[in-house]
């Protein structure tokens, strides 16, 4: 296979995943949230149980006027949605779907790359917040910055624990080294990583920066049309990314009950959707954390716990 065919195939595959998985997760959120609240959710769009609701939403967003406030910093304001979206696209590039290099771009320092790129999200939040020239945007953006910077630490420490256990920074290498008893050994790290990941993508119950009941819509207040849709898309790609990272790092990725070589991609996708379901489930079940509770959870619970997990991982690693 010539190089360019392989390149097109890999990039095309990642692009398809980037465009379809968030829609699937979004539709699942519509339906799961509705049924958890005793409703039915969208029922009309597309004819069968509203399967085309998000397509219809997309068409609606495209038709809306693209407004830039007069006082806004135009260039930064217009660039922010792209900055929010592109890091997640790059992360999807290195997340392995199955064995034998079934991945957009195999990378030896995949974990490092992923954590570094996900951290760019805070820049998009600050850009949109400052450039909007709106007090609600600014409040939301500053809350977002405090939250993202804080939760970055437990996220990285929990990921470092599993990297230490596997002895590699390559995501494929971590999945290959993974064994079922790690579920127990790395359980605290998994919970810490998952909770910090939720906070990183600003999902309820960690949606203080958006907090639509007090801040209108936080840093997204001034956005309309397609740019707003990009922010929403970034949120759903964020769910996919966090679910995929949790799967790859802590749930054994493509390792399934049988036929790992042929069906590895299926096990990965199943696990990703299961984790995404839990993310939606938490959103429906729990109220939003107050700003001080949010920071308290991060600095007084998650950071010490992740440090303890690092010690535990190191001890077991030396003992074995």
């Amino acid at each position, binding site marked *: 296979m010539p190089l360019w065919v392989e390149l097109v195939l890999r990039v095309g595959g990642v692009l398809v995943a980037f465009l379809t998985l968030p829609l699937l997760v979004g539709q699942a959120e519509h339906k799961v949230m*509705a049924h958890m*609240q005793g409703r039915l959710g969208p029922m009309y769009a597309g004819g069968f149980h509203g399967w085309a609701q998000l397509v219809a939403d997309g068409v609606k967003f495209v038709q809306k006027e693209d407004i830039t406030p007069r006082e806004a910093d135009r260039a930064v304001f217009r660039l922010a949605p792209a900055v929010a979206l592109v890091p997640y696209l790059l992360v999807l590039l290195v997340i392995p779907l199955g064995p034998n290099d079934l991945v957009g771009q195999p990378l030896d320092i995949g974990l490092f790359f992923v954590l570094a790129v996900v951290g760019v999200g805070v820049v998009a939040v600050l850009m949109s917040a400052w450039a909007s020239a709106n007090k609600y945007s600014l409040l939301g953006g500053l809350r977002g910055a405090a939250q993202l910077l804080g939760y970055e630490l437990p996220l990285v420490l929990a990921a470092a624990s599993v990297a230490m256990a596997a002895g590699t920074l390559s995501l494929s290498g971590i999945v290959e080294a993974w064994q079922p008893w790690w579920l127990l050994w790395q359980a605290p790290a998994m919970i810490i990583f998952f909770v910090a990941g939720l906070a990183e993508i600003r999902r309820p119950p960690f949606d203080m920066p958006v907090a639509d009941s007090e801040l209108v819509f936080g840093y997204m207040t001034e956005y309309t049309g397609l740019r707003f849709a990009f922010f929403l898309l970034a949120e759903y790609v964020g769910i996919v990314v966090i679910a995929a990272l949790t799967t790859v790092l802590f749930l054994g990725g493509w390792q399934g009950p049988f036929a790992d070589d042929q069906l590895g991609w299926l096990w990965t996708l199943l696990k990703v959707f299961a984790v995404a379901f839990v993310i939606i489930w938490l959103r429906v079940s729990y109220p939003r954390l107050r700003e001080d509770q949010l920071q308290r959870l991060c600095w007084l619970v998650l950071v010490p716990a992740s440090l303890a997990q690092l010690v535990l991982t190191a001890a077991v690693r030396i003992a074995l």
Partner: protein
Amino acid sequence: MSDPSEHGGPAGGASERGMPGAGLVKGLAVTLKTMTSRSTTQQYPDVAPELPPRSRGVIALSEENCTVCMLCARECPDWCIYIDSHKEEVAVPGAARPRQRNVLDKFDIDFSLCMYCGICIEVCPFDALYWSPEFEYAEYDIKDLLHDKDHLGQWMATVPPPPAHDPNGEPAKEETAAARKVAAARPTPPVVRPEPGADPGPAS
């Protein structure tokens, strides 16, 4: 929802707040249970709603029962019933003199004013007014909500048969009155309504 001590979790010696995290698990359980049970949404325009018995949709008029006594119009709290009538002489052959009777000319109910209290239906001594469960009579113009006597008469076809008497309710006034009369005439009154479960009745 209920006593917190019931949900203390497996830790018997735990404080009143229960195990740490028990509330979080309970929240997840509630949403999961709601998700797996049937949702309460009614698909209204696609599926006709299941209305409870004695639903108050629209008022139907049985014109031949009306004697133009005007009780309904007088009792109506917001005066939304308009009645016009005239007297006609009916000459019965062989009678000493011709009789007079009321003829209904106009019977309008303005449903833009009606507050669906049902007093007109309660007060009608001749059973000329009924509740119908039909509710889909919205109009684009508010003056079309004034239903005349032909329109009100058309609703009669939608009036459901009266529901059966509630077995646990108190007996009807007619029954108690009849029983009282019999009791006054006879020393031992018969049982008007058999006690539920005590007497199987003539069916056995």
